[in-house]
């Protein structure tokens, strides 16, 4: 039961890595063509997320001995993946912070800083930071939806909330006795959250720009 859950988690992490790489690549192509700093920050966010999800898959597969050669490095991969994902989510939230006016930014930053207090272990601490960054990113995306009324912005905002709650459920699975329930819930929420990230990719691929 538990090894099946871990394998599903590993496969989902690989899908997440693929999505991160695709979005990072599109954003990089956009940065090269337009020179927009917003796209550079988006590229950084999704390249870090790609690396984070790749390390997460390596951690899970080495933990269940699917990749025995990496078994000793499993804990390193776990911490590295949490760190890289937190950095990726930071860049995603940071892009929104730069869109907010300076006076409002001053109010937002103190909210973020105390949330980085150490928790039980490094990985759980990093996951809690990712949770708050995702919540912040999803709220800012929801605010952007109110301004632009674009359906895909709303879908992405909801997707980020699902990913945030997925991080919270995974965090709970580290500390709760009924961990299979929390771990399974985290996986289901992750599937929904990752699915929404396909929306901008599909929309971009389907659009042939006409001015």
């Amino acid at each position: 039961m538990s090894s099946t859950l871990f394998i599903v988690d590993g496969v989902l992490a690989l899908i997440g890595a693929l999505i991160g790489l695709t979005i990072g690549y599109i954003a990089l192509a956009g940065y090269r063509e337009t020179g927009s700093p917003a796209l550079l920050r988006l590229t950084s966010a999704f390249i870090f997320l790609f690396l984070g999800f790749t390390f997460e898959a390596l951690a899970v597969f080495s933990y269940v001995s699917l990749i025995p050669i990496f078994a000793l490095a499993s804990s390193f991969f776990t911490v590295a993946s949490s760190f890289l994902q937190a950095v990726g989510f930071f860049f995603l939230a940071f892009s929104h912070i730069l869109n907010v006016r300076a006076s409002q930014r001053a109010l937002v930053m103190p909210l973020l800083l105390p949330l980085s207090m150490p928790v039980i272990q490094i990985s759980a601490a990093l996951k809690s930071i990712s949770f708050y960054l995702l919540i912040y990113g999803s709220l800012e995306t929801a605010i952007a939806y109110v301004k632009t009324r674009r359906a895909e912005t709303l879908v992405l905002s909801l997707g980020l909330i699902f990913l945030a709650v997925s991080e919270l459920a995974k965090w709970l699975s580290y500390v709760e006795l009924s961990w299979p329930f929390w771990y399974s819930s985290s996986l289901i929420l992750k599937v929904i959250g990752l699915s929404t990230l396909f929306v901008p990719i599909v929309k971009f691929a389907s659009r042939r720009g006409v001015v």
Partner: protein
Amino acid sequence: MFKVVYRNSLRIVVDILTIAKDSDIESKGVGITTLLRKGNISYSRLSRLLNDLVRCGLIEEINAERGVRYRISDQGRQFLIAYSRFEEFAQSFGLHL
């Protein structure tokens, strides 16, 4: 309540290119007065910007009888298409280019 929306330098470039494209009816280019009026930008800033755009090949300079006129190049049109696509992509994430 009236809210002021500030344009960044990339947005100003896109606005100038769009004006050069839309106002150029007979492919004779547009004058600097049209760009100034529709672009809502100061003369000194527009002069510097036009020099940069000509140097990058996004706008062509035409020497006409009544002074210099400006026409969007093919590269400029390609830039507008790319901008439009990536703007939509960034907006999906709630961001502006």
